[in-house]
């Protein structure tokens, strides 16, 4: 079970509280986790990744196990502790004013 933490605005949009738990078939990567997330919560399509390019939106960051994975390949395996459900995959909005 993959644990995903969403930023507050996306939790509201998806109408969830706390962490999201997803079944994700291996390989567990950013892409497969986000695909599973968007399949379960279609209203999140386009809010994390650009709809056409599939790339991370500019002000979105991906963290896990105290590492910034934002600029890693979306097809790289996520850390074992994320795959085992010991640590969450964190989606968050970049710090910016306003």
């Amino acid at each position, binding site marked *: 079970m993959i644990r995903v933490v969403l930023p507050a605005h996306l939790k509201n949009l998806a109408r969830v509280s706390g962490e999201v738990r997803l079944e994700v078939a291996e390989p567990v990567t950013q892409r497969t986790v986000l695909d599973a997330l968007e399949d379960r919560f279609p209203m999140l399509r*386009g809010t994390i990744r650009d*709809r056409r390019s599939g790339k991370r*939106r500019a002000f*979105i960051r991906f963290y896990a196990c105290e590492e910034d994975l934002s600029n890693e390949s979306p097809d790289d395996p996520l850390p074992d502790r994320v795959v085992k459900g010991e640590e969450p995959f964190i989606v968050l*909005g970049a710090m910016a004013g*306003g």
Partner: protein
Amino acid sequence: MTGVRVLVGTRKGAFTLTSDGKRADWTVSGPHFGGWEIYHVAGSPANPDRLYASQSSGWFGQVIQRSDDGGKTWEPVGNDFTYQGEVGEHLWYDGTPRPWEFKRIWHFEPAKDDPDTVYAGAEDAALYKSTDGGKTWQELTALRTHETGPKWQPGAGGMCLHTIILDPANPNRIYVAISAAGAFRSDDGGASWVPINRGLRSGEIPDEDSEVGHCVHRLAMHPSRPDVLFMQKHWDVMRTDDAGGSWREVSGNLPSDFGFPIGVHAHEPETIYVVPIKSDSEHYPPEGKLRVYRSRTGGEEWEPLTNGLPQRDCYVNVLRDAMAIDSLDPCGIYFGTTGGQVYGSADGGDTWTPIVRDLPAVLSVEVQALP
């Protein structure tokens, strides 16, 4: 009519303001979608409980929300706004070509007779249509791919399609306006378009009477006279009496003819309203006095409406989609400011009161007369 509902989009959420037909006491609901920019909220004339809201954010992009109960509850619907076919290029601020890139939806125009049919105006400029209540959107590509498209350039606010007017007498006729491309008309339901900018003169572009390139801020039409349009341009208030075939200036005695919104009285087609702003470099009212100007002669002769509006130290702006006019009698007028006030008048503009004072900066105001 039992009352009115004012739909307010702000930098940090949407609000609804409701009142009975007297429009003296108001209930404020919101924020809906708190923290998100709400460029526009619009209601269907065919079903006032059907609302569409454009929710966007620099972080999370575009979301479209739909309500079927007058704004009590909302559901996200489709947000896939694809430019169909070859994307093409327009001019960037520095004069270099730049591919069209979707940023957000600025404006909805629900159809008069079908709550599931709605048009949406986008930045970068394009016109979309949904016939399934916002679940899916199809671009009407002939506008973006018009032969003048490569010459279009963004205004300071972005290259936005901000005005959509559906001719109530001719279902095939649509007017749109784009900053800073100008006004366009379709007579075949969006399959083809003609620029309708003859008579406009804009000193900000090299050829001041160019076919396109004008920074049109807003168009308005009275439904009983669909060939008469009023325009607040960057500078100049204009009118056409031949569906955009030619325009003439009607700024007359306005203290400044720069501004953003323009509206037409619900029952008097020659009574129009603007909010003069000092200049393109100083976006606040002249002399710090917030004044709506009314012309009862279709332009040229204007009178200031000040009763209830701040007449000193006021330095807010009123954006292009932030004024609305209801269909009650006497006619109600509403506008919102970048300072977060929403002012209302229940007597055609003679007197004003603040409905709410401290919202986030107001981006848009619409009003519905409730059955």
